[in-house]
């Protein structure tokens, strides 16, 4: 935990404090110097995503697609016979095109970020709650800065575990950016407050995004008539909430590369303050 050191154990190590005595207030050192006014210029001008690791949790990614420009890693998640989690290097790439599209969008916004693929969909498994959970847990354990996910599960038994996982990611400074559903479906984890949920607007500018004060969808990003990378090295035009999500992921990657010390809470605040309908 940054900045608060109030007690030492016998070895002289700092222990986190769970309360704040009067004399300790001055010793909280906030890592980020917050400007008088948070602007888009402060937030991401000059940034290209360098040093930020983004994970695409989806159907896989076609690594050699020109728009994707290479992956740091690619794994596939499945469940074995005894429901144990199996993580293998992904040889199959993308079996639908969607993961590639998301990777391409993030790359186009944050060209110097690192992209990785965690595949939880594909022939043989259809993103069951168990696989989604395993995939998300794996991605959180890898310590990615941003995890882009267009998936959810409606199965209630998974909700509480996903909630814990989303919260643990939040406190470990991994930002979860997830697509909201278009329909009033009770599904998870996009509804959790620790997750940045994204729906689609109809504007053409990739940097246009709106803050929505009415839950559960928090932000609207560009998701209509987007030219994206698709299978076979191609480019197609697509629409859907699931394409607005990587726009926000890309913008998060930019902000985090310029201000790597931001906590998810601060990052969300920056997104709010720079939203097109707020200060942006």
């Amino acid at each position, binding site marked *: 935990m940054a900045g608060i050191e109030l007690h030492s154990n016998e070895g002289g190590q700092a222990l986190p404090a769970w309360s704040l005595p009067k004399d300790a207030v001055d010793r909280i050192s906030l890592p980020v110097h917050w400007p008088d006014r948070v602007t888009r210029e402060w937030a991401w001008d000059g940034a290209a995503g360098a040093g930020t690791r983004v994970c695409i949790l989806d159907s896989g990614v076609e690594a050699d697609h020109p728009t994707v420009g290479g992956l740091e890693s690619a794994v596939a998640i499945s469940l074995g016979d005894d429901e144990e989690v199996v993580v293998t290097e992904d040889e199959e790439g993308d079996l*639908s*095109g*969607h993961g590639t599209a998301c990777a391409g969008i993030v790359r186009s916004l944050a060209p110097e970020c690192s992209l990785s693929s965690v595949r939880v*969909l594909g022939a043989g498994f*259809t993103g069951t709650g168990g696989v989604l959970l395993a995939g998300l847990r794996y991605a959180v354990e890898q310590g990615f800065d941003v995890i882009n996910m267009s998936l959810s599960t409606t199965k209630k038994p998974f909700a509480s575990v996903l909630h814990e996982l989303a919260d643990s990611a939040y406190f470990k400074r991994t930002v979860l950016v997830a697509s909201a559903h278009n*329909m009033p*479906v009770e599904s998870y984890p996009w509804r959790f407050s620790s997750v940045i949920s994204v729906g689609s607007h109809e504007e053409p500018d990739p940097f246009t995004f709106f803050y929505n004060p009415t839950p559960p969808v928090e932000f609207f990003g560009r998701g209509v008539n987007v030219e994206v990378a698709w299978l076979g090295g191609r480019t197609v*035009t*697509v629409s859907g909430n699931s394409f607005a999500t990587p726009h926000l992921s890309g913008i998060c990657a930019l902000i985090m590369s310029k201000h790597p010390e931001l906590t998810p809470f601060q990052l969300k605040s920056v997104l709010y303050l720079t939203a097109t309908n707020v200060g942006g």
Partner: protein
Amino acid sequence: MTNEDFRAAVASGVTGSEDAFRSLLSAIVEVARSIFGAKASSILLLDEDAHELVFEAAVGEGEDSIIGMRFPAGTGIAGWVLATRTPLVIEDVKKDPRFASDVAEDTGYIPSGLMAAPLLNDENALGVLEVLDRPERSQFSLQEMELLGLFANQAAIAVDLLLRARRAKRVLDGDEADLTVVAELAAAMDGLEDRRRTAGFALLRDLAQTLGAR
């Protein structure tokens, strides 16, 4: 033979035939195609046992050969929509060689644009509604996405009924063939008009008494 099986048998007798539901699915894809001014529309259902998506209704180009065709459930655009339970719209599909090698090529009709929405019922994703090649003149809008979702919801209700009827029928075709007569009785009663129905019930009550049920 359980209570559940008897209930299923009665349900099977009165909930309508496979043909009636096929007609309903056909009507849905017809309307979907018409409203969007599209060239074709189809409904794919998930065969859970085989883990495949199967074309169950189709209208428009390619409709003749497509019904019954199947492919692995986790693949392609329909597979993605099914797994994620979110709609997706894609244009210039034919530029994707992997799509062409899909079912589309076998039917002789390769669409260039595709809208797909999941058929959701309670917690389950039953299948996918597809609308192919909407007119190129118009840019896609969120309003169309919403309309697509509404159609998919309606289709899902019909599909759910269809699947229940099928499950009920499987009960009869399987171990519980004896129950066919129960289904037939239920269907017969359902089809009677008032006076004959009253007489029918009187007969059944007497039968029940004879059998010691009352």
